């Protein structure tokens, strides 16, 4: 990806207009008794990058599928560019592009053939389509490989293909479902920069789901935190962080040489402590509040015989925000999620979630 043309621009509201391009009202999706998305409402402004952050199974993908007309909402409405996603589905489809978690491409076709196939479904004149394909391939530096079967591509190349495939119809709204999943850090950065550039230069509205805090933090104008099928918070990254680093919340990184369960229990028992998470065998990350916070934590460690190696006062991250708002870590709920819908066979009752 050529970085030459890229100028670091502070993502502020100037690039966005105030008119919403996406309006979501009480959108709900149920699979039998299981509520995948529970009555969510939000607007997205034209030219905005909205991130949906949350653990697996929080309902991010389902939300995206409903907005991209792939899944029919059980209740509620959503409009894109004024078209209802159910009644005006074909109008909506002309406006959107989707980069899904699974790579949408045929391995036995060449890069070019793949793009021609998907592009031909949009009824573009042949020369326009060919030109656009050449431009897009050039943009992600795949021109050299255009006549190679995509089955031979590396994951990074495939993901770039996956992204430009979604841009064939020059969509006004681009949905990205975990676009950096399974990519190496360098490819992740490339994709992230590409999305930013697209947003800045073409004014494309972007909704991206991720469970990677870094992605969300670096990419999005606003972040919606999803948990248990609901949007529990929706604001800019800065504002979200303010909710916890405000008045009297402190985030401590504590390194204890002889860290043990009783020590952690003792810290947890302090009134001022909101949450404790263990980073590795020696480090703890503690969110606490109040004037006495430092003292109480240190006392708790010392009375249980802990030896403090170092102590740091940290800036809050989105991870802390998530922890603060939902009361659990992003990875917690991923483990506890019971697979739903498609794994239920022979009409057995949904098992719901264990928690």
């Amino acid at each position, binding site marked *: 990806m050529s970085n030459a043309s890229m100028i670091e621009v502070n993502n502020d509201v100037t690039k966005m207009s105030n008119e919403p391009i996406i309006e979501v009202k009480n959108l709900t999706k149920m699979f039998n008794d299981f509520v995948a998305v529970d009555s969510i409402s939000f607007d997205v402004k034209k030219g905005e990058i909205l991130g949906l952050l949350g653990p697996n199974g929080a309902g991010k993908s389902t939300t995206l599928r409903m907005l991209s007309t792939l899944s029919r909402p059980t209740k509620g409405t959503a409009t894109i560019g004024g078209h209802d996603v159910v009644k005006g589905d*074909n109008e909506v489809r002309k406006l959107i592009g989707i980069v*899904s978690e699974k790579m*949408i491409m045929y391995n036995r076709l060449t890069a070019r053939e793949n793009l021609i196939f998907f592009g031909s*479904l949009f*009824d573009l004149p042949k020369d326009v389509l060919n030109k656009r394909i050449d431009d897009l391939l050039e943009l992600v530096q795949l021109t050299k490989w255009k006549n190679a079967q995509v089955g031979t591509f590396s994951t990074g190349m495939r993901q770039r293909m996956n992204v430009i495939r979604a841009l064939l119809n020059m969509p006004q709204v681009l949905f990205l479902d975990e676009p950096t999943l399974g990519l190496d850090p360098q490819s992740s950065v490339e994709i992230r920069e590409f999305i930013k550039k697209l947003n800045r230069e073409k004014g494309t509205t972007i909704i991206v789901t991720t469970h990677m805090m870094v992605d969300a933090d670096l990419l999005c104008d606003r972040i919606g935190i999803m948990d248990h099928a609901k949007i529990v918070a929706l604001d800019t990254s800065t504002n979200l962080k303010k909710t916890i680093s405000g008045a009297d919340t402190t985030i401590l990184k504590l390194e204890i040489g002889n860290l043990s369960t009783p020590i952690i229990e003792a810290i947890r028992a302090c009134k001022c402590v909101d949450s404790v998470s263990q980073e590795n065998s020696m480090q703890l990350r503690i969110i606490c509040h109040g004037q006495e916070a430092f003292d109480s934590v240190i006392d708790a460690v010392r009375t249980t015989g802990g030896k403090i190696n170092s102590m740091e006062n940290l800036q809050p991250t989105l991870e802390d925000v998530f922890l603060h708002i939902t009361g659990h870590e992003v990875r917690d709920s991923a483990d506890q999620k019971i697979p739903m819908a*498609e794994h239920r066979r022979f009409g057995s009752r949904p098992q719901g979630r264990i928690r």
Partner: protein
Amino acid sequence: MGAKDLLSHSVRIAWKDLTELVRNRLGMVLLIVMPLFMMTMIGFIYPSSTATISNLPVALVNQDQGFYNKTSGTNSTIPSQIFITGLQQMNNYTTNNQTQPPMLILSSASSMADIRDKVQKGKIDGGILIPDNFSESIMSGEQGTVIIVTDQSNPTTAAMFQAAMSATIEQMGTLFAQEKVETLNPAVTANNSLAIVKPYYSQTEGVVSGNPSYFNFIAPGIMAMTVMMSVMTGLPVAISKEKEDGTMDGMMVAPIDRLSIILGKALGQTVRGLFQGFIIFALAVGLFGVVIHGSIMLVVALLLLGVYSFVGLGIVLTSFAKDQETAQMMMMTIMFPMMFLSGVFFPISQMPWYMQDIAKFLPLYYATDAMRRVMVLGAGVSDISIDLLILISFGTVMIAIAVPLFQRMMTR
């Protein structure tokens, strides 16, 4: 969205599918090899009316005690010896100076128990037993009984062996009778002695020229089956694969009619099926000597009609199949009964009446029937009108059920 768009999108999807298919080299080879195997195996394994047995290992037991001639005081086993010599001569019979493999490979055994033992050990496939009173019976003017011992574990061989032995013994009896007649009346020549012993002779002739061959019977059936099954079974598998791979979403987010997706996929499968059908056709004619008496155009039209009648069923299955594995299993469950019940491999008249009734509900039965009559017997459109009518109505009803079902499945 107009019909033109619908069609052009379908063609694009079909073209994409076929490009993928052609790129799959191994798949292409299998596409050709599979019908070849199927034809060869089925054609040679199952017996046709002209099939003969050869080199069948059989044990011969002679327990004949002989006939005691009171006047001369000698014991004679001449009748059983004549029988055995006759049998050996018949066995090594040559026609037109062409040496043919012997029908039986005769070995000797000592008793019925010995035969059973050897059959159990798999050394022989049957036995011929001459009982102790054989000469006695014949010399005292009675019929001499020969016991044919069969191996029940292999009914096909047993039946063929039995039939061959009956024919051989019958023929030996006839020769014997002819000789007797000639001795009784010297005026009778060898030719009319046969007419006296066997006054009736049956001659078989088919409605069209040529020898009946099992390939004639199965080739139309396999063609019909392959082409139609490709739509019925290929469609759910192809679509569930796209769903699993996620590529289906790529088509679903394009502003095209959902119907063009299924139409395009069906079109791709149809072309694949027709291609395979053509290979079977070429193999049948070129390699297995099947003679086509009907119009080729009508054969192609019939295959397309078959596709029409099955595409609805294919879509219904697609709507139910959640993943590829389920689709494969559903395919197997439906394909096997259909294959064997529709008279593709065996005539349904061989089956009990209730099975024949079930077969009449299967569209493949009518397609196979029509194909066979057109290809082998040279029937025209009017001759197969009932088959055509049933196929058209079945297809129409299934499509009427399938389309709304599919629309619902696509927008879950």
